[in-house]
């Protein structure tokens, strides 16, 4: 099964775990499994419309999945998917 790595800020919403091993054939499946298992994670990953928040980025190894097939990017057993936030702000 693919492995989802949770960044430090989101670990409190996944019972403190840094990695989750979840079933799924594409990135979207793994995210759905993650928020089904840990519902409080959902509001930090998805907005009220159910879309991935703009600062949530997913990397398969060194590659941003946006440069692959986005949420439809296929995953294999043992693939490591990282959630990496981008940070924005201003006045």
């Amino acid at each position, binding site marked *: 099964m693919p492995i989802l790595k949770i960044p430090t800020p989101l670990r409190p919403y996944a019972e403190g775990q840094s990695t989750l091993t979840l079933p799924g054939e594409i990135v979207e499946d793994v995210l759905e499994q993650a928020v089904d298992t840990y519902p409080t994670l959902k509001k*930090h990953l998805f907005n009220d419309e159910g879309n991935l928040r703009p*600062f949530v980025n997913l990397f398969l190894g060194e590659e*941003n999945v946006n440069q692959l097939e986005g949420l439809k990017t296929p995953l294999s057993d043992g693939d490591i998917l990282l959630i*990496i936030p981008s*940070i924005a*702000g201003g*006045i």
Partner: protein
Amino acid sequence: MKIHIPSHLLDKIQTHGESTYPNEGAGLMLGKEENGIRVVESLIFLENAREEENQHNRYLITAEDMLQGEKEASRRSSSILGIFHSHPDHPNLPSEYDREFAIPWYSYLITSVYKSKPSASRCWRLEDGRESFSEESIQAI
């Protein structure tokens, strides 16, 4: 909530805000958290990745920079505790835009820079409900 920052690092954050004025400057604070107290050990200064015409009131740290920051933190046996950024000619309070894009847990240190001179810095953390920030007291050490 408390965050301890060595004085020389706080000075560097403020000098960075001065150097990027009239644009916003930003970077990462690395360190450790023990017994509920965060201690900043080092900094990573980053380029503001927003388009140049928007850098006067916006900053962006890309996911690629965050990924490198995570790796660097790991090399330093440290963690990313939070983000510092400047508010040119504005108060050191989180804006609505800051709130919209903020991530819980991280410490957000904001430095006001008025007419190119840095003034005070204050630090904030997003509440779990994402609706507001709480102030985290800064202690210079």
